[in-house]
């Protein structure tokens, strides 16, 4: 079983103050702390569990700057043989289709059985890279996967649907699955693994190494344009209704009828 797991380094915005930067199209990330995208952490664990149970090989893939190495090596510390980091300022990371194209180019160079991504990234929340990646690779996919069972040349997964439904899907390999959080309990990387991870292969590639042309994956070649990023104003225009309870009820009812609510 040869597995690829796509991991992204994202800011932890749960506690931080988020401010839009001067370009108006990005946030000021200078004071953020960064880590692995939450869902990707579960994908890493799922791959390691599969490898522990059935053997195989895991390769991590990441598009990102040098700072991502800590996140990549942390995954290597939990299991996995090698990693590829794609660093190229020409890649437009705002367009999930283009991100998928870059990832696919890196995966296609090798034989593969199973590709895992997180179901969603915590920063951009497109929920589309995994699915688009399957399309680029020309293989089947299942999104929002909550459990994985490896069969002979096939894979059986449970998917989480809206409204508490679960869907069971069987697909032939190779395939792409996007992992939902909660599928497992991600382990902590042991110190020994962290030490060994420093010696594992981590290749850094550029567009040329992947045989990609700039216009395929750059902003100029994207059909999506980020217009503006802003924090919505929290408006409050509450009107206090005065009077006796009966008067208040009447005023309220009139307002509701006028407003089309009743």
């Amino acid at each position, binding site marked *: 079983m040869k597995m690829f797991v796509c991991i992204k380094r994202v800011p932890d915005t749960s506690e931080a103050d988020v401010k839009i930067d001067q370009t108006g199209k990005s946030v000021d990330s200078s004071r953020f702390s960064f880590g692995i995208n939450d869902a990707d952490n579960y994908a890493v664990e799922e791959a390691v569990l599969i490898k522990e149970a059935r053997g195989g090989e895991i390769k991590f893939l990441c598009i990102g700057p040098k700072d991502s190495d800590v996140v990549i090596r942390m995954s290597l510390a939990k299991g996995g043989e090698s990693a590829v980091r794609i660093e190229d300022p020409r890649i437009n990371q705002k367009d999930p289709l283009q991100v998928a194209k870059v990832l696919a180019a890196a995966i296609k160079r090798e034989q593969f059985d199973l590709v895992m991504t997180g179901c969603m990234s915590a920063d951009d929340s497109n929920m589309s890279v995994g699915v688009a990646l399957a399309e680029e690779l020309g293989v089947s996919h299942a999104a929002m996967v909550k459990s994985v069972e490896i069969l002979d040349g096939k894979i059986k997964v449970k998917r989480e649907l809206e409204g508490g439904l679960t869907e069971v899907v069987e697909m032939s390999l190779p395939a792409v699955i996007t992992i939902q959080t909660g599928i497992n309990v991600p382990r902590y*990387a*042991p*110190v020994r693994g*962290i030490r060994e991870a*420093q010696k594992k292969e981590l290749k850094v590639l550029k567009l040329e190494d992947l045989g990609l042309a700039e216009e395929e994956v750059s902003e100029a070649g994207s059909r999506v344009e980020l217009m503006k990023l802003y924090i919505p104003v929290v408006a409050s225009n509450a009107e206090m209704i005065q009077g006796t309870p009966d008067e208040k009820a009447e005023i309220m009812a009139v307002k509701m009828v006028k407003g089309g609510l009743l």
Partner: protein
Amino acid sequence: MDFRLNEEQQMIQNMVREFADKELAPVAARLDEEGEFPHEIIRKMGALGLFGLPFSEEYGGTGAGYLSYALAVEEISRACASTGITYAAHCSIGAGPIYLFGTPEQKKQWVMPCAQGKMLAAFGLTEPNAGSDAGGTQTTAVPDGDGWVLNGSKCFITNAGVAKVAVITAVTDKEKGSRGISSFVVPTDTPGFKVGQPYRKLGLNASDTREIILDNVRLPKESMLGKPGEGFKQFLIALDGGRISIGALSVGIAQACLDASLKYARERVQFDQPIAKFQAVQFKLADMKMKTELARTMVYKAAWLKDQGLAFSMEAAIAKLYASEAAMQNATEAVQIYGGYGYMKDYPVERYFRDAKLMEIGEGTSEIQRLVIARLLGC
């Protein structure tokens, strides 16, 4: 000059932070309240290799170095200072002296399982009549046939009730004063090795602190650490390393105080605005941040010097002194920022306040650190 942690150090810091946030932080208040020793958490820390950080691979460690170890102590202590002191005492002054001064056999027998998290260690130096003046040790070790017999008592010993091995100092030659003190590696299941009930403490209630009573404890010749009379010199060296870990522990508490205070100050509204908008509160927070950063920088520097094999006694004393006082000051301000709520057990700063005080006392009081620094200055 490079002030950044390398990738491996960042990873160890991230991993321990995640572990502390998920496993320790949610239970720390309860452990303190119930005075419960976290056996299961200690087992997990051992399995992750945290106890092996400062020890070489040859003796079961991971060889990651003292700075990585300091990072781990800091992160653990940020969530739970009780677990921090259990960890620091085990590595720095429990297994530490055996690692520094033991024979290869002693290291294989004791450091290896300690580094692998299979047992805990304690260090018995302090006595009822010998605290800061540890040269005044009264416990005796008398030659007996082919070995030694120890008699006496030790007080305030961290891990005494949970350790499988303890390093114990005792007088082997009364005539020679502090040069007549030797140290011994004592398995805690040796007949005559007894421990008292846990002390009822101000803080660090989830750590195990007890009296050790040595009642005709018979030890083989090989249990001595180093040569006769080297005990005093040995514990001074072991305490140098220990001070870095108490410094790291203090930085953890100082940071916890800042985190809690900042969060609260932004949420708490008085006079129609968050109290963080008042300059008087802002200045407290700024000072807390400054002290935490300065303490951290000094602790990392001392640890780095130790990893480089350079002299670090002065820096370790400065780091311990500054960081412990920063922790106590931050804890005092944290309670102040929380107001009446800070005085209540429902909020964590009350625990930080009680835990922080030990940092100014254990492994050499603040006064003793100043004395050490002054002596190293040549006074």
